[in-house]
Every structure is written in structure tokens, then in C-alpha cells.
């Protein structure tokens, strides 16, 4: 075949492909700006749906919805919800993967018509089924698209009283673009009031999670209020730090009592001997992170005038951390308790945590050695090699570095660290989610992939660092344009956190929403709350709140 003939064939191929693509996009697309064509009215009790009816839209839709809600309320005592159907489109594929990929998580529901009967799986249903939280894992890559088709088919088949095979053979599926009318979707603005409410809710969640023995309900599934296994001392210590900060801010007796229990647990049974010093952890190998965040939590409490009897523990923990420091400022991150020597291995976070903790502890120990050690560590953290990819600290996760910058600025200012944090925040801003048509509520969040709901904790850690950087940037006279961009990132990121905190969240699908209030879930579709999620989110929220309060009204 001559090149000219090949070229002609190629043009035909491209034209046909273009037409097919445009047709596919047109057929599958939905318009989410439309008025509701109909509404799905449901009533939930104890996290289970008890009643449902579809109400047509148009004029008097509001009245029809009220009637439906009242009717359900007479029959069932529970929480009424209304989900508006804005638009719909066909589902073209029935293979599990492509069917699942045909829906936007937390925005789309499923309608199936079978033998003249219609069943729905709305956003609430799919959240309750955990059908949106459906990762496909390929080695280190976590890939997530849409919904878990098998779970949804099973639920719809059960609802219609048919087998899944029958449903798939005879059912006609459509995608529904949904929006909550009742309860309305949260859209709080970032103000001192909303920040205070959200920050204290996160603190109260943690306070409720502290058991009588000072340990936490570590990881809880918000839907069933059930606990997952596992415990982690650095996270216990980090959560206690934030609980201390929020409890001292609120001067709430219940929160203060809870944080004292959690702190006494740290300074009690979690305290061990590491050579000449004491450290926090368990087992034969102590990690620096537990002691650093433990030191941070205890220092916060003592700074706030609580538990002054813990001062000797604070001094000893600070001495232990200093003893782990190398001459170049880096820390050895582990201590072998059987052979009594530090282990010169580095992992993420611990050096930043140690720098920050020593800086904060120095406010109560008044020991210049703590400040010097912290300053050396901070300098080491921001003196990275030219080939940054090879550096063992990951650029996307060094929030503790910016906390250390903020903590030390008045006593040991480090401009290189400020530049590091400003550059990092520019990167955070540039790689954040902006303008996702189906989910505009994700604006400002840290992306976990283009079609995937964002990871809330990733956003939270970046925001706490952003808030810390913002305070220093204002003092250090950073250019107005850079400040403005940083501020915009903080406003958008914190706005996202305000929208996704369980404050109160989708209470209709939870067994015990009161226990979960203030919890911060893993993602908007995975409502698992681990103690460090509200800690990171709360730290950013309360940090910005304090800045706004210092600035005063206007």
C-alpha cells in the first residue's frame, strides 16, 4: 500500500474515531445544573433504610416531598432524606469493571427497571453499602473507579426479589445524577465561627474516643460504630497533642479530663527505659516518633498549666531525643533496647516530629540545647540533595518540617526552611483538585487521582503545614502575591475539610451518629475514622482560627 493510500486510510480512521468518541460522550453525559426531575424520599433508622418513594418534580414538588416525608414519618421513626434526580443517562456495559466505572463516586446513584418495577441505589444506599469504596489494587498502585458493581447488583436484586443473574439479563440500568436536598449538602464558609465549631468538634470526637485507661478507640467505622484492630503509639501521642490544644482552647472539663487520661497513659505504662533515658513505645525497639509526639503532647499540656508533675518526664524525653541526634542534625530513628544503642535508620516524619517537639518542649524546659537541636534538625531537613527524588523524605508528606519552621521562627529563624515550605505549598496548590465538574466540592483538596475522591488526611496534613507556613510568611515579609496564593490554598483546603468532617455528616446511614460527630473520615466515601485524621484536620483548623482571632474582626 502506498504512503498516500495509508494516509487516506488513517484520516478515515481518525474521523470515525472522533465521531464515535463524541457520540459516546454525548450519550453518557449528564447535566448536573438542571432542576430536579424527580426526588427520592427515604426514611432511615439505625443506619438502615426503612421507607422509600419516588416523587415527581416540577411545580409543587416541594409540597409532594413534604407529604411523602410526613407519610413516612407516621409509619417509621427515623431520619427523612430527599435526594433529587438532576439528570440520568444509560449504563452501556454490564461487565463488572465497566459497569462500576460508569458512576461518579458520591455523586451518582443507580436505577434499575425490571419487569415494570423500579429500584434505586442512591448515594446514601451506596455509602451505606460501602460500594463507592472499591479499590482495585495492582501492587503499589491503588486504582479506584466508580462503584463496586457486585455489591450493588446484589443489593438491587435483593430489593426486587430476583437473582443477580436475572437482574443482569432482564434489568435496564440507568445512572442517576443526584443531589441531596434533605439534609442539604454542607457548604460552610471559612470563618472564625465555622473553624471554631469544626476544630472543637474534632477535639470532642477525640475526647469521646479516650477510654477509661487512657487508650483511644483507635480506628472506628462510622457506619456501624465498630472498631478495627490495631494501635499505634505515635498516633496516640499525636492525637493527644491535638486533644490537648483543643481542650485548652475550649477549657472544656470533659475534654481536659480525657486528655489527662491519654497523657497519663503516655507517661505511665507507655514509658520505657531506653539506655540512660526514658522513651515512649513498646517492645524491644523504640521509635523516635512516639517519644517526639509524646513530648509534644505533654509539653502542650504543661504549657497550658495542666499536669505540671510531668515536667521530669518531659525533660527526660527531650534528653532522649537529643541523644538520638547525629552531628549533622539528622536523628537516628530507632533505639534497640536489648543492646542499648541507637539504630541509625530513617523513616518518614520522625526527624520533623523531633525538631518540632524539641522546639515546643524548650518553652517549658527553657533549655537552649533543645532549641539548638531542633534548629539543627530543621536545617538538615531542608538541606536536601540536588537530585531530590533520591532523598529519603518524601516531598508530599513533610508537614512536620513546616510545623518546626513555625515553632522556631522567633527563636531560630530559618529562611531556607521558609522557602522550602513556600515552594512545597505552591506545589500543593498546583497539584490540588480544581474544577472537577461532577464534584466541585473537592476544590482545594489534595488529589488521589483524577477520577477518585480525595484523601482527606492528605489534605489535612498539607493544610496544617500551610497554616503554619502562612503565619511565618506574614511575619517574614513574603511578597503579597505569594501570600495571596498561599492564603487562597488555605481557604480552599480548609473549606474542603469543613465540608467533609462528620459534623454531623450523613447521620442517616450511621448507627450512632452522636459518637462519630467531629470525626474526620479517610475519604468522602470511606467513612473510617482513625485518631490521626481529626488530629491533622483539627490542627489546621485551630491554627487558622487562632490566626484569625489574633487579627481581630475585619
Amino acid at each position, binding site marked *: 500500500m502506498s*504512503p498516500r493510500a*495509508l494516509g487516506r486510510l488513517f484520516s478515515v*480512521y481518525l474521523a470515525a*474515531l472522533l465521531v*464515535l*468518541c*463524541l457520540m*459516546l*460522550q*454525548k*450519550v*453518557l*453525559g*449528564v447535566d*448536573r445544573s438542571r432542576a430536579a426531575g424527580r426526588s427520592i424520599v427515604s426514611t432511615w433508622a439505625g443506619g438502615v433504610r426503612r421507607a422509600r418513594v419516588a416523587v415527581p418534580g416540577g411545580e409543587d414538588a416541594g409540597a409532594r416531598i413534604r407529604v411523602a416525608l410526613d407519610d413516612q414519618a407516621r409509619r417509621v421513626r427515623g431520619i427523612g432524606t430527599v435526594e433529587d434526580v438532576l439528570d440520568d*443517562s444509560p449504563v452501556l456495559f454490564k*461487565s*463488572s*469493571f*465497566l459497569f462500576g*466505572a*460508569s*458512576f*461518579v463516586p458520591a455523586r451518582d446513584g443507580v436505577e434499575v427497571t425490571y419487569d415494570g418495577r423500579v429500584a434505586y441505589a442512591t448515594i446514601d444506599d451506596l455509602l451505606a453499602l460501602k460500594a463507592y469504596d472499591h479499590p*482495585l489494587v*495492582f501492587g503499589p498502585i491503588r*486504582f479506584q473507579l*466508580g462503584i463496586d458493581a457486585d455489591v450493588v447488583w446484589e443489593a438491587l436484586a435483593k430489593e426486587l426479589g430476583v437473582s443477580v443473574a436475572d437482574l443482569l439479563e432482564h434489568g435496564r440500568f440507568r*445512572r442517576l445524577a443526584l443531589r441531596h436536598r434533605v439534609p442539604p449538602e454542607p457548604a460552610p464558609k471559612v470563618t472564625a465561627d465555622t473553624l471554631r465549631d469544626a476544630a472543637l468538634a474534632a477535639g470532642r470526637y477525640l475526647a469521646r474516643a479516650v477510654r477509661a485507661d487512657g487508650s483511644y478507640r483507635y480506628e472506628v467505622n462510622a457506619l456501624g460504630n465498630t472498631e478495627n484492630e490495631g494501635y499505634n503509639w505515635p498516633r496516640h501521642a499525636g492525637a493527644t497533642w491535638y486533644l490537648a490544644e483543643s481542650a485548652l482552647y475550649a477549657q472544656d472539663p470533659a475534654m481536659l479530663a480525657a486528655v489527662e487520661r491519654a497523657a497519663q497513659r503516655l507517661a505511665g505504662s507507655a514509658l520505657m527505659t531506653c539506655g540512660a533515658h526514658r522513651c515512649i513505645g513498646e517492645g524491644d525497639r523504640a521509635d523516635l516518633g512516639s517519644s517526639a509526639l509524646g513530648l509534644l503532647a505533654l509539653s502542650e499540656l504543661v504549657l497550658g498549666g495542666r499536669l505540671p508533675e510531668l515536667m521530669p518526664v518531659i525533660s527526660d524525653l527531650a534528653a532522649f531525643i537529643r541523644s538520638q541526634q547525629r552531628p549533622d542534625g539528622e536523628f537516628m530513628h530507632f533505639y534497640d533496647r536489648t543492646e542499648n544503642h541507637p539504630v541509625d535508620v530513617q523513616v518518614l516524619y520522625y526527624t520533623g516530629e523531633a525538631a518540632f517537639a524539641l522546639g515546643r518542649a524548650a518553652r517549658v524546659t527553657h533549655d537552649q540545647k533543645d532549641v539548638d537541636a531542633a534548629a539543627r534538625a530543621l536545617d538538615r531537613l531542608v538541606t536536601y540533595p540536588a537530585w531530590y527524588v533520591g532523598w529519603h523524605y518524601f516531598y508530599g508528606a513533610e508537614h512536620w518540617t513546616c510545623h518546626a519552621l513555625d515553632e522556631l521562627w522567633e527563636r531560630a529563624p530559618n529562611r531556607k526552611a521558609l522557602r522550602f515550605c513556600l515552594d512545597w505549598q505552591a506545589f500543593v496548590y498546583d*497539584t490540588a*483538585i*480544581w*474544577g*472537577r*465538574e*461532577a464534584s466541585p466540592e473537592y476544590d482545594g483538596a489534595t*488529589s488521589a*487521582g*483524577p*477520577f477518585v475522591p480525595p484523601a482527606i488526611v492528605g489534605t489535612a496534613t498539607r493544610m496544617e503545614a500551610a497554616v503554619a507556613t502562612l503565619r511565618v510568611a506574614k511575619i517574614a515579609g513574603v511578597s503579597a502575591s505569594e501570600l495571596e496564593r498561599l492564603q487562597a490554598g488555605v481557604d480552599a483546603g480548609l473549606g474542603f475539610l469543613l465540608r467533609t468532617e462528620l459534623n454531623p455528616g450523613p447521620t442517616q446511614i450511621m448507627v450512632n451518629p452522636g459518637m462519630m460527630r467531629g470525626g474526620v473520615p479517610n475519604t468522602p466515601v470511606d467513612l473510617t475514622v482513625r485518631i490521626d485524621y481529626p488530629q491533622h484536620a483539627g490542627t489546621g483548623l485551630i491554627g487558622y482560627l487562632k490566626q484569625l482571632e489574633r487579627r481581630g474582626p475585619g
Partner: protein
Amino acid sequence: MLRVSKSRERRSEILFALGNLVPALVLTVGLYALPVRWWPADVVVGSAVLALPVTSAIVFGRPALSRQALRVGGSVLLVVGLAIVAAALLSIAFLSGIHGDFGQGGVTLMALIGFLVLPYVVVYPVFELWWLDRHRQQGDRRAEVGAVSVAPAPAVESRDDGGAIA
């Protein structure tokens, strides 16, 4: 001169044969890693995964058949490449229909995948087929020129005059 040019062409043939093994390897990994099994995709990609090493082996083992083997290999790769491009564009259209505008991150990711894939499955086989076509034409021309240069001189009647002096 002709010998140098021949050896250079042979070297190019071997490079193309080796080059064809790279996409074959990538396609093998892709075939294995696909999250869903769909027999048309398995057949098309599996055929390419088999055809490319076989044609490369022919280039190494049967030099006389090199050009034909490379032409088959390049064509198979181009067809599979165009199928992959079609699948990628249809996937983007599908995701765009489902998600609407999915933001700068999605566009960047798609562009990155496109730039990583296109050189191997479209640009490379097109270049390979173009090279084969060009050298086929050159070969044809050389053959024509060769045919002219070695052709017997036109027959001229030679007559023995018997040493006669005019």
C-alpha cells in the same frame, strides 16, 4: 560502496527486529496486567505478542526474508497501536461522559499516558514501514540501474575483412 550500504541496511533490519521486541515485551506485560479479561482484546494483543518475536526471529535466522518479516511485524504493531489509540480515546470519551470535565490533573495524566504510548505503538511502526517502503523503492531503482549496466551491448555486425586495406 554497494557493500557498505548493504551492511548498513542489514544493521537497520536487525535494529528494527530488536526494536520490535520492546513493544512485544510491553504488550506482554499489558496483557498480563489488564484488570479484566475480554477475549477480543486478548486475541488481538496476544497475536501481536506472538507475531512480533516470530518476525524478529525470521530477521535473524533468514536474512533473505528480513524485509517481508519486518513488514509483517511493523504492520501488526501499527494495527495494534491504532487499536490501542482507539481504545484510549474511547476510554477518555467514556470517562469524560461520566465525569464531565475532570480537571487539569486528569488531562495531564491522559496526556502523559498518550506521550508515553504513542511513540512506541504508532510513530515507531510508521517509521519502520516508511523505511521499508523507501528501501524497497531504492532497491527497485538499484535493480533497474543494475539491469541497465550489466545488459549486453547492442549487437553490432562484425565482419572480418580479411586484412584488406581500403
